[in-house]
């Protein structure tokens, strides 16, 4: 791990980022959303999530967008920018409160599944033999399920607390990393520097964790970035289908679920939270996709 080589790498990567409009846009969007999630509690008073006022539920008073007939106008004096939801809370403020919840949950899940998947995959690749077989078969079992369905079954069985939902989605996402890192480890093992390190007497664990894994970090980085978006989609879909621990929880899928029975009379409840999810996921996917192009070893130098 030569530090100067790494910093040259990083500078070249930044240069490529600046050149590519889409990746730049994605980066700016992600920074924007991260700033919002860090300052959300200062922008909006967090306790309004639990102040219900049913006199003003499902109303819209912004004259910029007209949703057609059958839309209830808000009582005089209340002017929510994006309308109100079923509990009478201002939708824009709820979305701002929901963004940190979604993003932090997504980061936790991706970090945990990356660590779990990388460790298991590295162990499988390094030790080989029976351990490799067993880990691969278990991974196959998990991969043979479509993602959302697996998360659904786990969520239904584990129960509806936030922790259980995080574990449910985690169990869906970790197998991808095992396959990824195992292939990388298998190919890195054959290289000369590993042989040199073993000749020097370095233990296998040290070689694996201090040398091989850092050299295979790029595909993991790309996959993690892409997965943040995917996890947000899966998690909010779970919430949308009704698994949220608390109907008033500020979370984008939960806010959208509120609008299921009122699609034609209060469409903003589904449109705006969904749009937010789309933009956040798109931003992370833009970065991940751009990273994949930038870090492609064949396109550099």
């Amino acid at each position, binding site marked *: 791990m030569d530090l100067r080589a790494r910093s040259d790498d990083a500078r070249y990567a930044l240069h490529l980022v600046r050149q590519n409009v889409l990746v730049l846009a994605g980066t700016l969007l992600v920074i924007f959303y991260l700033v919002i999630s860090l300052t959300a509690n200062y922008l909006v008073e967090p306790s309004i999530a639990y102040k219900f006022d049913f006199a003003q539920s499902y109303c819209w008073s912004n004259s910029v967008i007209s949703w057609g007939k059958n839309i209830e106008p808000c009582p005089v004096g209340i002017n929510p920018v994006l309308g109100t939801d079923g509990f009478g809370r201002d939708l824009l403020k709820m979305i701002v409160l929901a963004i940190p919840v979604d993003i932090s949950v997504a980061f936790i899940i991706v970090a945990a599944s990356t660590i779990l998947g990388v460790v298991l995959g590295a162990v499988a690749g390094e030790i080989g033999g029976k351990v490799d077989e067993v880990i691969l078969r278990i991974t196959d079992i998990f991969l043979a399920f479509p993602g959302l*369905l697996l998360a659904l079954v786990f969520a*239904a069985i584990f*129960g509806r607390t936030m922790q259980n939902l995080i574990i449910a989605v985690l169990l869906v996402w970790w197998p991808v990393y095992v396959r990824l890192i195992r292939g990388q480890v298998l190919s890195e093992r054959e290289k000369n520097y590993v042989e040199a390190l073993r000749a020097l007497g370095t233990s296998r664990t040290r070689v694996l964790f201090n040398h091989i894994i850092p050299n295979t970090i790029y595909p993991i980085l790309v996959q993690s970035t892409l997965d943040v978006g995917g996890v947000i989609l899966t998690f909010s879909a779970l919430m*949308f289908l009704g698994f949220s621990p608390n109907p008033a929880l500020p979370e984008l899928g939960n806010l959208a679920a509120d609008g299921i029975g009122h699609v034609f009379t209060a469409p903003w409840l589904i449109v705006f939270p969904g749009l937010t999810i789309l933009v956040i996921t798109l931003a992370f*996917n833009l970065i991940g996709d751009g990273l994949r192009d930038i870090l492609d070893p064949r396109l550099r130098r």
Partner: protein
Amino acid sequence: MTFVLFGISLMVFYLARGFPSAFAPWTQYVTRKMNAQQIQAIIEQHGFNKPLWEQYIYWLRDIFQGNWGYSNWANGLPTYEVFASRFPYTVELTVAATILVIVIGIPLGILSAIRNNKVSDHIARLVALTGYSTPTYWFAYILQLVFFYYFYTLGLPYLPSGGAISPTLAGTVTAITGLPILDGILAGNMNYTLDALAHVILPAFTLSFTSLGYLARIVRASMLEVLKQDYITMARSKGLSEKIVICRHALKNALGPAMTLTGLFTASLLGGAVVTEYVFSWPGVGDLSLQAVFQGDSNFLLLYALVTALIIIIANLTVDIGYAFLDPRVKY
């Protein structure tokens, strides 16, 4: 492959029967009016008080005799009947979605590759990634809102908002295959077929939107690879027009990996159409599995999990064999 199936059945069985969960496995056989004695009688009748591995062996014996258990919430019908009556609808939806993915995704990918790094490439990439990032339920509701509600209020011809066939036309054609479109064509009833088509457009487009982008990216990547090859340069230097170079020479080789991957999509679409079917009230198997999860019906979930896993495993195998077929360098 059998090991994976066994593993899945073990895992789902343990989750459904053994894990201390919100749903007791006898939930669907028990009504609220029963007292503790009757509940105990039902537990003993179905064998839920035996040790877990014994239950598993009984369950295996039952399946191999063709008895998949009963779904009490679906009027006590046998599970495989409930599954089989709805499965063709999911197949219809999946096939329609796959056709859309191929028809839209491949040209998008080719366009991206030809105009690499120009504006149209960036736009196509944006469209592809947007498709990849859209929440399915959001897209489904937007389509419903626009094409059903707003078209209706504006007086335009509107697409139906749900179901597979209009209630007025349902049952007017004998179901041979179970897929409404095919049945209509086989019976020669064009009204029925057109109605079924109108019903399938929106859900199929919703389903396909997510995978479109992915296929387009893959076609773009493999097309770029192919276009760098020497024989393409040769064809160009012979004086052939760009169109012939791409259509006749590059396309065949670039599409190979993409087509085999379409098999994988189809398999995962089959399993994952849960949300789309829920939003459009499509009478398919995904919607049913959602109900099964909420009702705690372990029999149906086991059947659904095994069938879905089987389809995905077969699709994976087909993709692997397809790769070996297309690329003689890959050996097994």
